[in-house]
């Protein structure tokens, strides 16, 4: 996660041109005036909610006994909370399996589109991107119906082909089924990021490669992939954040598979359950903060690693 900070305008003036102290401070204030609309909105919509969550996480409200300050007790509880860690483990597994598959497919499609050998390029581009335009809730509902082992697509396949496919909504399969939905939704989106990055590679590089006698695979490995490394890293970071925030799909599918998807299936779903079913707003805030920190650390580590060799 890139931390964007406004450039320090006041300090940047060239040494020889720097005006006397009074003028400098006046200009300083004018700068704040220009920045303030942004800062006010930024404070209201970003800093205040985070600050409020931190504040909430230091208290505990009980049905009996009211609200009291508990310091870091909630954090201590979160670190020993089996349900929280099992949810985190689940999205971690999801991240390790689903994200590479999704990005791999997206990359393949982008390279195929970019190869210029594909007939009906814009048609494929649009149709692969189309699922991204379907809201996640609708997509989950749609797939939920298809997953139905009694009346859905799976049932029809089993009936007509005399197969016995496993129930996609059984506890052992439901995470994979969710992965399938998410892959379907986001392959097009990632494909578009990669494709856009591929299009800006100067044609002269390809011409040079051809003169040197490089084949297509060589061009991909030596030119295309290094050139879109930035796009790959960005897509990976987005996907990591998306995985850790998994919520819509399990929450919709829960109504179809109430026993396979627990109330702590993913960390986000867990905070939702804590807050809305258990009235444990304080603990929910704590879990959300811990989760935010974990996401930040992992995403930042991936970004550092991904960008290292580039400079």
């Amino acid at each position: 996660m890139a931390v964007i900070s406004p450039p320090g305008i006041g300090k940047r003036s060239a040494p020889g041109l720097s005006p006397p102290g009074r003028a400098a401070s006046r200009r300083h204030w004018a700068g704040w005036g220009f920045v303030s609309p942004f800062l006010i909105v930024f404070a209201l919509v970003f800093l205040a909610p985070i600050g409020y969550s931190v504040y909430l996480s230091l208290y505990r409200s009980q049905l009996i006994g009211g609200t009291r300050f508990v310091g870091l007790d909630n954090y201590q509880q979160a670190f020993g909370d089996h349900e929280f860690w099992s949810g985190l483990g689940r999205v971690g597994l999801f991240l390790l399996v689903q994200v590479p598959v999704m990005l791999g497919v997206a990359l393949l499609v982008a390279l195929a589109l970019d190869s210029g050998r594909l007939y009906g390029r814009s048609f494929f581009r649009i149709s692969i991107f189309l699922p991204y335009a379907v809201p996640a809730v609708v997509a989950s509902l749609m797939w939920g119906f298809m997953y139905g082992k009694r009346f859905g697509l799976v049932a029809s396949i089993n009936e007509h082909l005399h197969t016995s496919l496993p129930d996609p909504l059984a506890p052992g399969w439901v995470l994979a089924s969710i992965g399938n939905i998410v892959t379907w939704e986001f392959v097009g989106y990632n494909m578009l990021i990669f494709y856009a990055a591929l299009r800006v590679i100067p044609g002269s590089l390809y011409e040079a490669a051809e003169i040197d006698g490089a084949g297509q695979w060589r061009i991909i490995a030596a030119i295309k992939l290094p050139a879109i490394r930035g796009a790959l890293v960005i897509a990976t970071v987005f996907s990591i954040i998306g995985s850790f925030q998994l919520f819509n799909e399990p929450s919709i599918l829960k109504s179809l598979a109430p026993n396979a998807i627990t109330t702590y299936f993913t960390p986000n779903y867990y905070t939702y359950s804590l807050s809305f079913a258990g009235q444990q707003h304080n603990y929910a805030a704590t879990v959300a903060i811990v989760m935010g920190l974990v996401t930040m650390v992992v995403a930042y580590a991936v970004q550092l690693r991904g960008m290292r060799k580039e400079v």
Partner: protein
Amino acid sequence: MTNKLLRRWAPGIAVAAAAALGLTACGSGGSGSDSGTDADAVTSALAKGGSITVWAWEPTLKQVVTDFQAKYPKVHVNLVNAGTGNDQYTALQNAVGAGKGVPDVAQIEYFALSQFALGKSVTDLSPYGAKDLAKTYSPGPWNAVNIDGGVYGLPMDSGPMALFYNKKVFDKYHLPVPTTWDQYLDDARKLHQADPKAYITSDTGDAGMTTSLIWQAGGKPYAIDGTKVSVGFDGDAGTAAFTKVWQPLISEHLLSPVVPWSDQWYKGLGDGTIATLATGAWMPANFTTGVKGASGDWRAAPLPQWKDGQHASAENGGSSLAVMKAGGNKALAYAFLQYAAQGAGVQARIKGGAFPATTADLDSQAFLDTAFPYFGGQQANKIFSQSAKDVLPGWSYLPYQVYANSIFNDTVGKAYVSGTTLTDGLKSWQDKSVDYGKQQGFNIG
């Protein structure tokens, strides 16, 4: 999702087309408006007029509000749908916490009422004469609004349980209508053997139904005494009776894995693949609107018994109307409660398809004689009314049942999809309920 899950708790939410029930023929044996409270404040509040806000999602209340305002032109009732079930409770709890925007009256389901009573968010209605209404309501709902020696709401409707069964299926396979749960299990086996696509019922783990059946079996897993709470499914005789029948139903795959209130579920009720349904008496309206195609196939029967020859029943679902402590005009709020839950409002709601909690209506001949065209002309209210009388006394829900029910599928639900037994599942539900109770400051004994 929440809506669908909660619909079972919200009798009458799909009741709009209740005229089809033929309940319009109901007589007026109601309790009338001379309901015997001597709280002068209520009478003078009505005379003086004013404005109150009511939070409720039950559709038949709209008519009640219209009638009420017509009768007392000086009173204005602001009826707000703040969400169904859980959504409304969350909003209500937030409003109480903020001390702002709290309604005067709120619809609260029986299983959730003690949570609000304990949190002191709802008013004890005893000073208004509510204590004297014991005879007015059937025992189940009355017991549910009596918490710690106070009366924290007036019963609005009720859900005495009955067994709905698809007669066509039972006739086809020559199955006897079960009078005991052992016989029910027997029918389940025979039916599924005769037609592998047909199941005796659908169940994917339903906290409301499980607790209701344990209640009917005489179980008392929850004991509440003020803030002293105990949870004990292990060693509870009623729970043991329940698992003895339900475990084989699960292990032998005799239960359809279709989630209640889903499209598949309605389809199953219609095509005979779900042959019975043990639920509250508010169900008929859902049949007429949701399973139109099977009109004439279904009948109602008394709930099967855990011991042969007994007559025990339990409640499933139903709501009360409560007066909020932070509300402004309590006397006027109570006047509305009286009208809606005890006076002329009850009749209007029965006409709308709701199932009453008032004994006068439950016993009225016109009500009992109502023929249900959907059930082939059966006078099903006779069964429901008897069930209301047979509800076992002494049951109580946890003061945080809303939360407990939300984790039912995390714990007991495992028994439906893995090797975990129902007994182990209930034990882990118990443990988690105890943990939560401790965290919330209850004295867990």
